């Protein structure tokens, strides 16, 4: 099974590498979020009136910075947003990985695979792993861009921090691409697939701590965000890269791992069931 999965994953990666336009299209969305949204929301200048006497200016900006730190854990909203976008981007890529499979079913490639002795779980996993390779590549690009735009890493950053953030991002990718690939195996109509993608895409992004802290949200939304693995992944990434305090660090990991693995397994069974049922 390992060789078959590997063979098909390499196929996914080769196909992706030969699609020349996809790189720019994929990077451009998070780039807009970071560049336009993240950079233009400069709270210090937004909240400072221009007509106050200079002696109060320093005091006011000190006050605003204090508020920002208590809210975001950093004075740079850009840094806060960028760290959330790392997780959201992994989520977006996973979600769209499912759409790709619906196209492939149309072209008849899946049928061809099903006529071979390839283990059905291998067919499923190659789709998930193919998405994961893409995520890892784009995340590195994103990190470099964020750094260039002034991402404020915490002092005393170690390789372990990077590793932990990476694993959290990978878990989000595994969970959501597993779930979406599982859904895609059961859907033949690309429009329905995109409807499902739209249904989960934005709500899951907003109902999480990726863009704004939970404590700013109404309590019902907080309730939803606390079930959302994106929240835990974003908290873990921030704790590791920018040093935002996280009181329930171990608990966050446990919940993230639990939900991601659960989504992956549900997707796996849904996918295999669809392949065997036809």
């Amino acid at each position: 099974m390992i060789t078959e999965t590997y063979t098909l994953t390499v196929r996914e990666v080769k196909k992706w590498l030969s699609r020349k336009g996809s790189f720019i299209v994929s990077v451009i969305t998070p780039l807009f979020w970071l560049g336009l949204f993240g950079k233009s929301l400069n709270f210090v200048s937004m909240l400072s009136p221009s007509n106050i006497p200079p002696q109060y200016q320093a005091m006011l900006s000190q006050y605003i910075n204090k508020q920002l730190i208590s809210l975001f854990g950093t004075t740079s909203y850009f840094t806060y947003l960028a760290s959330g976008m790392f997780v959201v981007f992994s989520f977006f890529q996973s979600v769209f990985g499912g759409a790709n499979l619906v196209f492939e079913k149309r072209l008849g490639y899946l049928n061809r695979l099903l006529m071979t002795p390839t283990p059905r779980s291998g067919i499923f996993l190659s789709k998930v792993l193919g998405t994961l390779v893409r995520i890892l590549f784009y995340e590195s690009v994103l990190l470099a861009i964020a750094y260039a735009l002034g991402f404020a890493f915490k002092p005393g950053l170690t390789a372990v921090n990077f590793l932990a953030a990476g694993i959290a991002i990978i878990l989000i990718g595994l969970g959501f691409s597993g779930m979406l690939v599982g859904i895609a195996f059961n859907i033949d109509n690309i429009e329905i697939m995109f409807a499902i993608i739209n249904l989960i895409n934005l709500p899951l992004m907003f109902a999480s701590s990726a863009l704004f802290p939970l404590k700013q949200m109404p309590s019902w939304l907080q309730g939803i965000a606390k079930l959302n693995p994106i929240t835990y992944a974003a908290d873990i990434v921030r704790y590791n890269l920018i040093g935002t305090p996280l009181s329930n660090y171990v608990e966050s990991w446990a919940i993230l791992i639990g939900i991601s693995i659960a989504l992956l397994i549900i997707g796996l069974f849904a996918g295999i069931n669809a392949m065997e049922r036809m």
Partner: protein
Amino acid sequence: MEKAVVVKNLTKAYGDFVAVDHISFEINKGEIFSLLGPNGAGKTTTISMLSTVRRPTEGDAFIMGHSIVSERYKVRKLIGVSPQDLTADDELTGYENVLIMAKLFGHRGREAEERVRWSLKFMDLWDNAFKKVREYSGGMRRRLEVAMSIVHNPSVLFLDEPTVGLDVQSRRHIWDLIRELKKNEITVLLTTHYMEEAEELSDRVAIIDRGKVIAIGTPEELKAKIKGERIYIRLRNQEGLGKLLEKVNEVIPGSSSISQGQLVIKVGSSSEVLPSLVKVLSRYDVIEIKIVKPNLEEVFIELTGRELKEEGGFDKFKFVMNRRRMAR
């Protein structure tokens, strides 16, 4: 003789619609066997059941003695399938596409590479093996589909409409290669709606219509079902057909009819009746006379009252529709 494929009462129903209706047939080892029928007759559904992708609603089939219902994994190792869809990845080379298939069938390293080379050479694609598939012509793509299905040396090869949409030259090329396959002792099950294809290639043919096998035999046996030849006559003035029919019935009694705007005369041998027919026709404005020797198309018309292929230009549309049906 040993049987490569035994199909027993195979049935597939989608709700009320019965796509394949209790079909049974057997294929001998090393034979080229055709399922001939119009689009939508159930050929592709039959192939997808025999290749274990779809489960039959009823009945069973055995590939080299293994059940397609209870021994699906064993069956998958024995078969090769070249589907009607063009499945090869555009972004990869022909070589890469075939190599993926070799690996999925458990071949590794040197051995896999040797097989890929053999398969591509066999299908006359070696010169273009390292080009991206998007640069391939229609005929090359079809041949690549077959190359992808024979790389593991299957016992039974399914070819679903292997020449659909191709020009005459590419079609003949593929026919030659399919005949070569026979020499390699591969049993071939071919589906087609081209009667020339079935006639040219097959040892035996099953004619399938609306999910049922309506006739089975060697092309010669099937053609023997129609006695003699047919003469088709078309007039400039269609109203004259009735009158002509009466006149012809006087000369050649009881074997003529009017069908689709032309007079059809069934005769044992056209050379015997032509002299008297010409006399009758001299008073009519004839625009076309066609003498047709027995062929599978005629057999299909005889059995179903319909033509095998609809009016020209249908291929593309039907093809897409078929694909849509498959995708469901």
